[in-house]
């Protein structure tokens, strides 16, 4: 923001405050006004506080590592002050699935603007070929070799029950671009088949997630720039039709009030007094030499200032059009890994082009130290033929009704103008307006609005 805008904002705020004082005796302040104020806390790099500026190193060219010339020479996880690139590396620690061996049940799905639901439940086991974390990914495995092994055993919907996948994702660099070995066991074919790896920027069929949304992008594939700071007060928004969710926590089903779920879990120590989270806002531009022809051009991340956990991400194409908004709820799942032990509890992926609201919820997360015998047995294509769900993990997080789906994330149109343009077509804006008015997704046009009356989830 420039100084004129700041003055204008100050005047606007003062005026609004006076108005609020005048009516405070008779009415409660409108929620929208509070939301507006919260949305105006963003600052450009120039406007950042001295404290934040002290954390930031504006250098754009830093010494490179002697052995791996495309990464910074300073050892990961770096020391403050951080360059934008280093912040990007730190945020790459927190990919969709935590970078440690574990067992989870992934409940995922998508709802269309007409209310069609497609969901899946998959029990997933992961093992690593190096140390946990980004450090292990960078240094412990050579490019062109698999750094992890992931299995997925589908338990829902009935059509895909028993279908399994084995992913062997590779450490990649510019010479070694094969991203993974990929096998599917089809219950209908009763065959294990090696599949071509998915194209990285393409969303999965009937889904809003792309392959890279799941597996993560390497931080050296992008140019990083710090746009400024912001305060986030919400990421994933539950509808008013879903006052509670049932979570599998350490094997026990626990009913949780959705309104009480915090963005980074209960034990995150850096919440502001008003409940917000201070974030850096980073702009990552895809490097054409690393990812030629990649469909995404610019990614904008809101990462928390202390751990660099990405709470929100926006994708723009080469024309600057908004493609997707991703927001997350995190939990401190692996306490032994300290600040690096946060993982996504739930992620919402809103594909703007098709107005697909997708989600992925990681339920029943358990760290697993696989025995050598288990590792040899489970993470092979042939194991899938055995149809053996070694450690079943149950979930009750499947969404039963389209109106119980997550809300589309907020767009924040006023933030960082010129750097981002979160404009959506009028038809989608109308659906957003209807959603904001109803407090849940609305699938009918304004004329047929009676459907907005929906019972809360039981």
């Amino acid at each position: 923001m420039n100084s004129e805008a700041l003055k204008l904002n100050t005047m606007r705020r003062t005026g609004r405050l006076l108005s609020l004082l005048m009516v405070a005796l008779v009415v409660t302040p409108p929620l929208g006004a509070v939301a507006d104020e919260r949305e105006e806390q963003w600052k450009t790099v120039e406007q950042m506080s001295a404290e934040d500026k002290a954390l930031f190193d504006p250098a754009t060219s830093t010494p490179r590592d002697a052995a791996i010339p495309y990464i910074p020479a300073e050892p990961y996880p770096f020391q403050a002050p951080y360059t934008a690139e280093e912040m990007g590396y730190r945020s790459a620690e927190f990919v969709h699935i935590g970078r440690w061996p574990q067992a989870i049940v992934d409940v995922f799905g998508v709802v269309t603007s007409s209310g069609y639901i497609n969901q899946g439940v998959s029990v997933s086991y992961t093992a690593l070929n190096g140390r946990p974390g980004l450090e292990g990914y960078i240094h412990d495995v050579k490019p062109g070799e698999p750094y992890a092994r992931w299995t997925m055993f589908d338990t829902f919907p009935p059509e895909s029950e028993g279908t399994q996948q084995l992913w062997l994702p590779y450490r990649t660099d510019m010479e070694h671009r094969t991203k993974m070995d990929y096998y599917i066991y089809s219950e209908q074919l009763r065959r294990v088949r090696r599949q071509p790896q998915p194209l990285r920027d393409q969303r999965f069929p009937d889904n809003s997630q792309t392959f890279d949304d799941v597996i993560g992008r390497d931080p050296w594939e992008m140019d990083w720039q710090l746009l400024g700071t912001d305060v986030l007060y919400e990421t994933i928004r539950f509808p008013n039709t879903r006052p509670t969710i049932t979570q599998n926590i350490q094997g026990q089903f626990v009913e949780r009030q959705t309104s009480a779920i915090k963005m980074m879990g209960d034990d995150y120590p850096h919440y502001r007094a008003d409940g917000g989270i201070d974030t850096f806002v980073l702009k990552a531009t895809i490097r054409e030499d690393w990812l030629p022809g990649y469909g995404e051009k610019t990614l904008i991340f809101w990462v928390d200032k202390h751990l660099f956990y990405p709470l929100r991400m926006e994708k723009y194409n080469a024309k600057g059009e908004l493609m997707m908004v991703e927001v997350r709820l995190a939990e401190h799942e692996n306490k032994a890994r300290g600040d690096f032990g946060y993982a996504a509890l739930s992620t919402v992926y809103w594909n703007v082009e098709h107005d697909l609201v997708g989600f992925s919820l990681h339920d029943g997360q358990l760290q697993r130290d696989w025995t050598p015998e288990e590792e040899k047995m489970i993470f092979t294509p042939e194991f899938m033929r055995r149809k053996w769900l070694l450690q079943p993990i149950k979930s009750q997080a499947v969404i039963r009704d389209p109106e119980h789906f997550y809300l589309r994330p907020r767009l924040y149109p006023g933030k960082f103008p010129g750097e981002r343009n979160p404009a959506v077509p009028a038809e989608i804006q109308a659906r957003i307006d209807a959603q904001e008015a109803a407090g849940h997704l609305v699938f009918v046009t304004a004329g047929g609005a009676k459907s907005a009356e929906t019972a809360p989830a039981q």
Partner: protein
Amino acid sequence: MSLYASWRRAACLSALLAGAVAQAHADSAVSDMFSEVDRAMATFDPVGKYVRAPIERAVPNLRFKGFVRQWTDILLEEQGQVGFQNQDYRFLQLQNLLELETSYHIQDGLDVNAVTHVMYDGVYDWQRSKGLYANGYFKQAELYNTSERLLREFYVSYRKPSFDILVGKQQIAWGKMDGQFIDVINGMDRREAVQLETEDYEWRRMPQWMANATVHFGQNSLQFLYIFDFEQDRQALPGMPWYSPALPQSTSDIMLPVRRPQNDRFVDHEYGLRFDRVQGSLSYGLIYYYGWDKNPVSHIVGTELSGGQTLLRLEPRHERLHHAGVTADYAFALNDVPLVGTLPVVLRVEGLYTNGVRFVDFGKQALVRAGLGATDGTTKRDTVRAAVASEFGLPGRSTFILQASYYRTLDWTQNLGPGFGGGFGDEWTLIPVAFFSRPFGFTRDRLSMEATVFPVISGPDRGWQGVKTKLRLIYKVSQFVKTQLVYNGYDGGSTTDTYGQYNHWDNVGWELSYEF
């Protein structure tokens, strides 16, 4: 501007405006109606809700699932007499299949699994036809009414980390390719003849009683099969919709009962061995199977004179076969491909060599009929069948597969009839299959299409044997209900060729399935 012209222009504008408003209302009404259907279907799972969930709640160790499926295929035209077939019917199948799968977990590693199903095909009851009469002498054509068909699978499985054993009735699918190359263990219900395809094998295989053990070590596995039950293929029979029009419905020769392997004779049992290994981007496997030909071959066991004509006494017998096969696949990605960028590719290869395939030898049969020889009217040959496929992952969630399938009879002679694994009525047959599939983004991927072309070329005799074209539109109504529309067309070739004989069998079909 005249008053009339102004009035006309205003009327036109009003009409356009009214039309646009009406169109907008109609559009929103239609989209609201679709939305209502979508939301209703999203929660439509009555069996899951009222049967499966309560059962699984009451018996936590029990897993219960199933599906109901309705297939209908209808001929585009009714042709009357085609070859030997009286095609006085339009429906090729009106099949309704209910399948239930249960699995009871007894203790760690120990489970009992059962699959039961029942099928009713309405083609014999729901249309008037003299050409369709197979249900009169073979009830299973219409309804699965025997325990053998109803109890589809039933086996106990016991698993340890490095060892599995499954004992009971089960089906085994070997191989990785579309089509059957090393997938040789179970017989198949081939009532659909040339229209049977890989995605239907699951419901068309004939499970067998066997012991199936696998040892796992490192990236390797070794599987042993001991099969003490025999199930032959069920071919389309006279009076069925897909019975070959190139074959007569009856014969003047004397057909004796089929001599088939006996389950209670140890020497009749079958054995299989499979080794698999994964080495990074390459995985491969080897198989050996000592089994029976799933289709009997008629042996001449004598002759009779009738009306001055020599009739053959024919006894169909299943023959012992040795199969040795190989399967492998390899994955890689091509970079900087024009228009596509990165192009992920998988190569698959599979081959089977079969020793001792018995063929009917029409030359020898003719000699016996003429009283010039005393043979059993058969000839033994070895056969090879193999396929190479490339699968490409294209943008837009599209897939393209090219698969060349090759069948050859070694030391082939012109008088040989059909036999396991060999060329189709010829020394060799080549089927270069092309497959393309993609979902449509504008339907949010609910609608997808598949197109497959199967041209058949053989030599040295027949040449072009026709082409089959399959187009499929699949629509996901909900996460439980799916429907599809299928067109199968047969073109080219002569009336005795693989696809040529079915030139009048072009059909469209639809399928509706509900899984719970």
